């Protein structure tokens, strides 16, 4: 077997994202199914408004959270498979050279679906644990008849079985696709396809320092990681700011839940992205240190490019949370009395930004210490 459970365990990021997605979606979809059962019991117009608002909220949250997180989990899965194949090219090349077919090698990649299974099961179980509290919260003013928690097997199918099967199949299919390379290309380390910069651009372009060149090249060659860094800061920004607004619009507990999910997603993604950046550049860092580049210069070249990207993510998250809450208040709750007016909370944005900068810089400091520990003999271990 080429890939074992140990390899799948490295996909903890997917498990965390799947867990968060299923936790939120299960709670809201189960609530959606249960609230639909009491539609006939609603008599007053005000209760009907409230009912409609709750139904719409459940739909929006399921689609937006579920959709965004599903997309991220898929990108992360594909990234990991590609990364796995790139870092195990030689072993896979040897297997192909020995006569193993692409499919025979690729079918072992199904274990990557286990990470989805673990995440979805935890999320699903967690949702049922939180559900009594969630149902009470959603109907705390008793505007609707009592909503009882019912078990809907279809949710287990949609959020646990189907994602696991789909992610396993996707893993095998994508691995098979990525393995469609000549054996020699897999066996030879340096045979990487690198596009050539057009000559006119080289001649006319301003001459950059090596560190700046490497910073740009690192960003350019690891576009998926740029996405993850943007996603992590987006989660931090959107969820922290939204959690403060949620206190007024929903409840304090809802705000705390959102904050926890946001922070878990942000840190897991950021941690995995930066670890991958450093692991993927160990040789480059080691070589730079052999030549006499300082730790600061190594950090600037390898990690420096991601800093502006993280601010872009923060800005997108700020706009997103504002847009989503504006949409919720103006469209979903427009006919509902008692919902406080929603305005952009500038002080909360500043507090989130300061917290984000502080956390990001602390994390970068920790990683720069990790860079310091990269042995310069690393390059000699082949």
């Amino acid at each position, binding site marked *: 077997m080429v890939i074992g459970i140990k390899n799948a365990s490295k996909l903890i990021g997917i498990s965390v994202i799947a867990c968060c997605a299923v936790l939120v979606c299960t709670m809201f979809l189960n609530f959606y199914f249960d609230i639909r059962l009491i539609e006939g019991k609603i008599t007053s117009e005000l209760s009907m408004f409230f009912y409609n608002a709750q139904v719409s909220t459940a739909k929006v949250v399921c689609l937006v959270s579920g959709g965004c997180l599903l997309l991220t989990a898929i990108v992360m899965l594909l990234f990991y498979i590609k990364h796995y194949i790139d870092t195990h090219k030689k072993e896979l090349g040897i297997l192909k050279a020995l006569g193993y077919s692409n499919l025979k090698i690729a079918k072992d990649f199904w274990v990557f679906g286990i990470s989805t299974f673990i995440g979805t099961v935890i999320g699903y179980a967690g949702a049922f644990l939180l559900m009594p509290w969630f149902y009470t919260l959603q109907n705390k003013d008793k505007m609707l008849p009592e909503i009882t928690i019912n078990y809907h097997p279809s949710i287990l199918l949609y959020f646990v079985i189907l994602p696991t099967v789909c992610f396993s199949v996707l893993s095998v299919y994508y691995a098979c696709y990525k393995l469609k390379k000549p054996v020699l290309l897999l066996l030879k380390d*340096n*045979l*990487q*396809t*690198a596009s*050539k*910069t057009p*000559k006119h651009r*080289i001649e006319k372009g301003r001459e950059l*320092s*090596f*560190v700046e*060149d*490497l910073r740009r*090249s690192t960003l*350019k*060659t690891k576009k998926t990681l740029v996405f993850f860094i943007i996603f992590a800061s987006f989660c931090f920004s959107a969820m922290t700011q939204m959690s403060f607004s949620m206190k007024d619009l929903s409840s304090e507990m809802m705000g705390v839940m959102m904050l926890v999910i946001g922070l878990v997603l942000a840190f897991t993604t950021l941690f995995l992205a930066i670890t991958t950046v450093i692991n993927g550049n160990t*040789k*480059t860092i080691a*070589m*730079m*240190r*052999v*030549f*006499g*580049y*300082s*730790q600061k210069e190594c950090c600037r070249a390898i990690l420096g490019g991601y800093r502006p990207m993280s601010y872009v993510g923060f800005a997108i998250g700020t706009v997103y949370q504002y847009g989503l809450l504006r949409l919720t208040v103006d469209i979903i709750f427009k006919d509902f009395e008692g919902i406080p007016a929603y305005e952009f909370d500038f002080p909360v944005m500043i507090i989130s930004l300061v917290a984000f900068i502080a956390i990001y810089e602390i994390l970068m400091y920790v990683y720069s210490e990790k860079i*310091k520990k990269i042995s*310069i*003999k690393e*390059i*000699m271990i*082949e």
Partner: protein
Amino acid sequence: MIEARDIIKSYGNGESRFQVLKDISLDIEDHDFVVILGASGSGKSTFLNVISGLERPDSGKVLYDGKDITALSDHELTSFRKKSVGFIFQQYYLLPNMSVDKNVKMGADLADNKDYKTIIGAVGLGEKRHKYPSELSGGEQQRVSVARALAKRPRVLFLDEPTGALDEQTGRQVLDYICKLQKEYGFTIVMVTHNLNIAEMAHTVIKMNSGKISEIYTNETQKTAYEIGW
């Protein structure tokens, strides 16, 4: 002048501890061409790493013009490598996503060398300076690593089996470039190899065996890369 004094270096712990360098002392003159010769496991690469500041010995000193580099902090050692030494390895370790130009610039920037394109021309790659390592042959890649090491204008150039991954013709070509550039720039060469014939190109030959220097001799006449056997 490089002076190695009573160098001892071991790897492993407890019962598996193995002494690789056993009390080695040696002097290397400026501008010399030194070859360290020995079989696999003789400790020659470890010795090169120690005298170049890549590794610290367990005991002993390495002096560059009287200054002990084993006493330097990590930061000072980095600064020392930046200013004084260049490296060429058997596996070229070029940055795959950067062109020849930019790989050489890696060395050039450290010495604020704006004239690094001359060195790319000197190793015969002027026409290929916008190519990526994957587009070059093994010999060409090693020539890029030669240019990269020399672009930082080192006082001492350390080479660890520089022709180990090359065929005979390409190996000769690379060595020829290195020798020509030494005459032009005047740096000291310390090369590790197991190839006896390459030793004929050097001025000083140091033979190592089981972590000790077994013989040191000088060649009265140095052969060119095209005159030696292979």
